[in-house]
């Protein structure tokens, strides 16, 4: 178990090799290093998993974790943090997701990015990203998790702004970094509060002390839970801080697949799952988490309906699926939310990668209005996309069904409103997924399907196929996370609840089929309400709101005060002294009589002073 530290260091090693070579390394070597480090890390994860199960099988109680302490990190006064990694069921399952899906995406990316001039730089950032994500997941204390947390934010900035020639990407990258950084600050303040209240930042210690020092519903755990939620919301692009995710699609597609679908955006879910005892202590925070999830779920659903860029549709669908995970956390369905996280990572990565190969085939065309009828030209992407959408809609046999159903049932258990919202969300998902499927593959525009060139390179298709297979089979996996998290109590809602849960997506598919392929019921397409469509398309106007509320005032304030008002003080002193000089020099006008007059006046003043005081 003590080679646990090897998992984050391998990608870090890959990163350092690529950085030090700095451009002198040819593509083939860079590819080998890039993929090799992640693959090796995946192998070590498997080896660790075997050891974990071996230990778990003979008697060790499942939830207990292993800590590997490396060196004392920050030691000052009563703050005592050391660089130590912690492994338990939850982090092991996250390891599977990150390294597994990560390897597949890296293989795909090595083909996808082949003709890009900055090939080595791409893999440098990807390796750094995976290292930071692994550090986040394996961190034993919250500050080390914060290190991974910010490292991941930095890499998302670097990778979104990868094609730096176009300033738009640069703006999107900076927006992502600043918005997530706002969330991180909330997280940091939560840390400070935790340290002041509980005197330590080690995760296990905090969870023990929290449970026995605070009683349920006290306002301190609620405050800390809300602050931690603030951090999670920033990173997982949930309600208040979700505006950066759609713009993050400016990065290359493998990046969107790895970061903005499988790993980084789930960091928030991991944080809440990891610190669940604190959340359990405050019911208000739990309802808040659930409602944030629910509202984001619906907003993203509606917006996805009106998007024309294939990657933005997938981005909003990611946002809504993570909304499901937050909802699951909120209704204490801990293990099903992590399970949904895993399955979502698989099928969303699949969807993004297939979208990538479609874009590659159409010479970087991302607008679905210009696509259509690609069923024949791109068979493999077509079938993979089909499977991915099936999982997304949560049709019964696929893994999507096995992970989303328990969430709906748990939601019903806690509050029917949550359930109703979730089911509506599922219905919306069905509609926009079928819309996407039809517009891209089935519906043939007048001019016939656009010509495509089949992208060469063996790396593209195998990962798709593996992912497709996995997302079909994943429903049966039993994640080790289930042991680390408290077991959700059995759900036994009335039958009609389960049936609607399954039927509504089918109805959604049917409606999608009618509207988009058969072009009937056009009224439904909100064709005429252009204003409403624009409002929905722009993510319910949050972008505009934040712009007007924060960005514009800051810019005007900065422009107004470009050279520092305080600087005027010394300049003012200089001006004042020159003015005095001119005023008094007029007094010396050389006229004798003027001088005598001033003498007389002075005499008068002195005498009157002497007399009257």
């Amino acid at each position: 178990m003590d080679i646990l530290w090897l998992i984050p260091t391998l990608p870090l090693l890959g990163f350092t090799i690529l950085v030090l070579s700095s451009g002198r390394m040819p593509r083939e070597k860079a590819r080998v290093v890039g993929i090799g480090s992640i693959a090796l890390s995946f192998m070590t994860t498997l080896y660790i998993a075997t050891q974990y199960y071996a230990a778990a099988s003979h008697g060790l109680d499942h939830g207990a974790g292993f800590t590997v302490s490396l060196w004392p990190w920050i030691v000052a006064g009563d703050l005592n943090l050391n660089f130590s990694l912690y492994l338990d069921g939850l982090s092991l399952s996250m390891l599977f997701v990150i390294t597994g899906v990560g390897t597949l995406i890296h293989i795909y990316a090595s083909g996808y990015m082949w003709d890009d001039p900055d090939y080595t730089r791409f893999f440098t950032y990807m390796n750094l990203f995976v290292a930071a994500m692994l550090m986040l997941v394996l961190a034993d204390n919250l500050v080390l998790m914060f290190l991974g947390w910010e490292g991941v934010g930095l890499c998302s900035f670097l990778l979104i702004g990868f094609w730096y020639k176009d300033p738009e990407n640069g703006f999107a990258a900076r927006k992502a970094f600043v918005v997530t950084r706002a969330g991180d600050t909330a997280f940091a303040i939560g840390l400070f509060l935790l340290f002041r209240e509980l005197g330590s930042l080690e995760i296990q210690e905090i969870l023990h002390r929290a449970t026995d020092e605070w009683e349920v519903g006290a306002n301190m755990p609620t405050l800390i839970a809300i602050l931690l939620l603030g951090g999670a919301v920033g990173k997982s692009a949930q309600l208040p801080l979700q505006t950066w995710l759609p713009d993050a699609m400016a990065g290359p597609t493998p990046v969107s697949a790895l970061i903005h679908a499988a790993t980084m955006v789930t960091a928030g879910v991991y944080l809440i799952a990891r610190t669940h005892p604190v959340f359990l202590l405050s019911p208000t925070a739990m309802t808040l988490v659930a409602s944030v999830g629910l509202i984001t779920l619906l907003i993203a659903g509606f917006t996805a309906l009106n998007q024309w860029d294939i990657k933005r549709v997938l981005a909003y669908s990611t946002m809504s699926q993570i909304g499901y995970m937050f909802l699951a956390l909120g209704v204490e369905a801990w293990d099903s939310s992590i399970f949904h996280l895993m399955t979502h990572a698989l099928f969303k990565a699949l969807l993004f990668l297939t979208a990538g190969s479609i874009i590659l085939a159409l010479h970087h065309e991302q607008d679905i209005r210009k696509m259509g009828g690609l069923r024949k030209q791109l068979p493999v992407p077509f079938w993979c996309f089909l499977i991915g959408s099936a999982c997304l809609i949560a049709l019964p046999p696929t893994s999507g069904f096995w992970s989303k159903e328990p969430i709906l049932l748990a939601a019903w258990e806690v509050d029917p409103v949550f359930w109703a919202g979730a089911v509506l969300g599922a219905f919306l998902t069905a509609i926009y997924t079928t819309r996407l499927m039809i517009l891209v593959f089935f519906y043939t525009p007048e001019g016939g399907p656009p010509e495509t060139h089949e992208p060469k390179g063996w790396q593209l298709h195998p990962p798709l196929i593996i992912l497709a297979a996995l997302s079909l089979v994943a429903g049966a996996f039993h994640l080790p996370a289930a042991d680390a998290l408290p077991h959700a109590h059995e759900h036994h809602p009335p039958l009609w609840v389960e049936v609607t849960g399954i039927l509504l997506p089918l109805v959604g598919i049917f409606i999608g089929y009618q509207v988009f392929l058969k072009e009937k019921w056009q009224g439904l397409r909100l064709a005429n309400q252009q204003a409403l469509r624009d409002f929905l398309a722009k993510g319910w106007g949050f972008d505009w709101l934040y712009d007007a509320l924060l960005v514009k005032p800051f810019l005007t304030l900065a422009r107004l005060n470009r050279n520092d008002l305080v600087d005027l003080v010394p300049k003012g002193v200089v001006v004042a002294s020159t003015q005095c000089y001119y005023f008094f020099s007029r007094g010396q006008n050389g006229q004798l009589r003027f001088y005598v007059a001033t003498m007389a006046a002075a005499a008068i003043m002195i005498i009157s002073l002497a007399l009257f005081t």
Partner: protein
Amino acid sequence: MTDAVIIDHAFILAAILFCLGLTGVLVRRNLVFVLISLEVMLNAAGLAFIAAGSAWGQADGQIMFLAVVTLGAAEVAVGLGLTLLLFRRFNSIDIDQLNKLKG
């Protein structure tokens, strides 16, 4: 009118003459007139000394008057010398010519 009032009035007279002299100095641009007014001011000062001396019955007043007179004499001598120089230099004795020292 008692003697004391006389002394007081003498002082008032000295003050009046002094102020008249001062006005003369302030107004005139011709150096000679300035000197003349100066003489009057000195005279007024001398009067004040004499009046005080006689009020206290001591000779100090008159000695101070003597000093004032010598001062006046010396001052006039030098003043008139300067007037000549001024005249030779600027061909007029307007003291406003002398403003080379202005700021």
